[in-house]
């Protein structure tokens, strides 16, 4: 498995690299660490000022990649690249295609609270165009070097295209040699006030949803291949945060979510529920592109 890390010489870069490293180690894969620098003007100018700038950029990139090399420390085979592009997203997409990467890892936007993921200019653009799974490291992600990727939890619902997501996640698990866990969220944050239908009316809906969810998970487990093992869990809480906390998470676990079915085929596009899940996640997230059903 070839993991492409979009690297920069800041904490976002090292968080992304830490996650990429973890994934590459699990599947005995390799890393491509890539730094994107701004494109300089193609035509040489009279005073060659742009050459000076290009040199500066190059030095900067080499320094960044040197830092990455230290972090990787030879634990996995890695290639270090520097690419000039008009936009970071564009450069990364190009590299991902050339290197035929299986997955792209990015850091969270710096606006995220600690341990959370927010999408910023780079990863939002990427989320709308990437043809490969994207892993996002939460802000401040710094796992112990000994921690290995140990499980993928896949957020599913009983909807039809969730089955495809689960299948994709399961194939990924098989390649990485880790078990899969199916997760469905039941969030009880919708009670209407005032109401003559009772102040617990929404629990009735949520409990029904819970029943449908475990039924759906059972169906998915029955259709997925036996190996690697699949378990299921339901995250149930009054808020998204509480629901997230109601489930036990291992260190070295990542959460996979599927793209919305509104987006184009084979592309990543976060739907409203997936966006909420990613927003509230406190572990790395892996966003899977939509596959043909």
């Amino acid at each position: 498995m070839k993991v492409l890390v979009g690297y920069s010489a800041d904490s976002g870069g090292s968080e992304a690299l830490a996650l990429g490293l973890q994934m590459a180690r699990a599947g005995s894969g390799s890393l491509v660490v890539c730094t994107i620098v701004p494109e300089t003007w193609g035509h040489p100018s009279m005073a060659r000022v742009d050459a000076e700038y290009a040199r500066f950029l190059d030095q900067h990139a080499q320094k960044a990649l040197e830092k990455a090399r230290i972090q990787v420390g030879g634990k996995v085979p890695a290639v270090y690249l520097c690419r000039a592009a008009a936009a970071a997203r564009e450069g990364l997409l190009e590299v991902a295609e050339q290197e035929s990467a299986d997955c792209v890892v990015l850091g969270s936007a710096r606006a995220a609270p600690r341990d959370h993921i927010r999408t910023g200019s780079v990863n939002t653009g990427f989320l709308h165009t990437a043809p490969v799974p994207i892993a996002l490291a939460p802000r401040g992600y710094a796992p112990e070097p000994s921690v290995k990727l140990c499980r993928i939890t896949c957020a599913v619902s009983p909807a039809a295209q969730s089955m495809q997501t689960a299948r994709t996640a399961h194939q990924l698990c098989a390649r990485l040699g880790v078990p899969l866990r199916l997760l469905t969220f039941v969030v009880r944050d919708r009670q209407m006030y005032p109401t003559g239908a009772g102040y617990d009316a929404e629990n009735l809906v949520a409990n029904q949803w819970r029943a449908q969810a475990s039924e759906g998970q059972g169906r998915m487990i029955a259709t997925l291949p036996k190996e690697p093992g699949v378990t299921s869990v339901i995250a149930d809480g009054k808020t998204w945060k509480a629901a997230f906390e109601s489930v036990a998470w291992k260190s070295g676990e990542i959460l996979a979510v599927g793209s919305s079915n509104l987006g184009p085929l084979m592309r990543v596009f976060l739907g409203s529920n997936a966006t909420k899940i990613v927003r509230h996640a406190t572990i790395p997230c892996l966003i899977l592109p939509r596959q043909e059903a």
Partner: protein
Amino acid sequence: MTETPALLSRLLRKKPVELLARDMSGAEDAAHKHLKRGITPFQLTMFGVGSTIGTGIFFVLRETVPTAGPAVIVSFLIAGLVAGLTALCYAEMASMIPVSGSSYSYAYATLGEGVAFFVACCLILEYGISAAAVAVGWSGYLNKVFEIVLGSGLPARLISAPLVPDGNGLALGGDGILNLPAVILVLLCSLLLIRGATESAKANAIMVMIKLGILVMFVAIAVTGFSAENLQPFMPHGFGGVTAAAGTIFFTYVGLDAVSTAGEEVENPKRNLPIAIIAALIIVTSLYVLVAVTALGVQPAAEFGGQEAGLATILQNLTGSDWPALVLACGAVISVFSVTLVVLYGQTRILFAMARDGLLPELFYRVNPHTLSPVACTVVVAIFVALIAAFVPDAVLWELTSMGTLVAFMVVSTGVIVLRHTRPDMPRGYRVPFYPVLPILSIISCLYLVSKLNPATYQLFAVWLVIGGVFYLAYSMRHSRLEPAGKDTP
């Protein structure tokens, strides 16, 4: 009929309280059971005021002043009194069950499936029909806003119903083709419900402030043009007119039962439930009476009939300027929107609960995995309510709502008496004072108001009950979750 004994036992079977509690249980019930009592008496009063005001005071004078004359003030007091009595009885029944639900679920747990189904039929009138009625009233105020802002309103053909009450039934002959704004409102609210919109306690408080604000503004402005002459003759159609109007006006108190259903969620229900019910009732009734008195003081009783967006029009005529009317109409448009949302919500959740109990097809309780809301149920409700709002005139809708609500409350009040005999030991968080006088008074007063409703309303109600009864016998009875396993149920 060899099935008779089985039918009787089916009608009388009760949903176990444990099952009800399991259906309604929250995420962390085991660990945090005692944290649930979170509603304060003040909040509860606000819920009562919030869900009550908006279901009618903005529109109901048009229909009732011609019937009762200035004595409509007395009609408001009578209706308020009846609403208070029934709300107290309802509170006792609600407090017997440790979970908050609708009167349908309380009846199912205490009085049996047959009564519960009957109550549910009435509740569909209380919610579904009143949602349509409120939407129709809303369309009048929206049109008023258009009139003031754009200079001309919507074409008359698009804002009124084609059906008119005709003797004992409905007949074609209205000026309109359909009531378009009402349909749009219902569809918009349903769309929001499908998307999973909720109204928080905080949003309710804001809506309460808007409603109180515009009504107080109305009273304050209208009082300047008060002329006591308009109140003469006080009772042109005698006391009969007053009580007939009270029957229709009862509709404006629908929503007060939102307080009773809070049951176990409020701290110290024994003390706080009656306090909240009575406080909400006093606030609502005083406001209604003040609005009615000042409106009557400004405008002779004869001019109320057929007046769309009545309160705004009165302000416009009185002040000669548009802005107070515009403020009032805008406030009404915003707050009635939220009332429609809440009422439609109640309707979908009651149907959801019934479907969950097996009394309605599974379609009604499927939760959509994308929106996490019962989409099919909401769509069905939206279509029915929108059709009714489009084609049926509001006067008929108000009476039907009053009918459904009054009958449901009669059942509840009777239930309180029955349960004191059959289940005397069952713990009750709240007991009705002056038993058995108060429940009996509640039943009698409901009966009295019901007897004053139009014959057409009776016919529609009877048709509805027959449809409900046939459905129960043909479907619900056999598919109930309480049906012994292995017979007809899957």
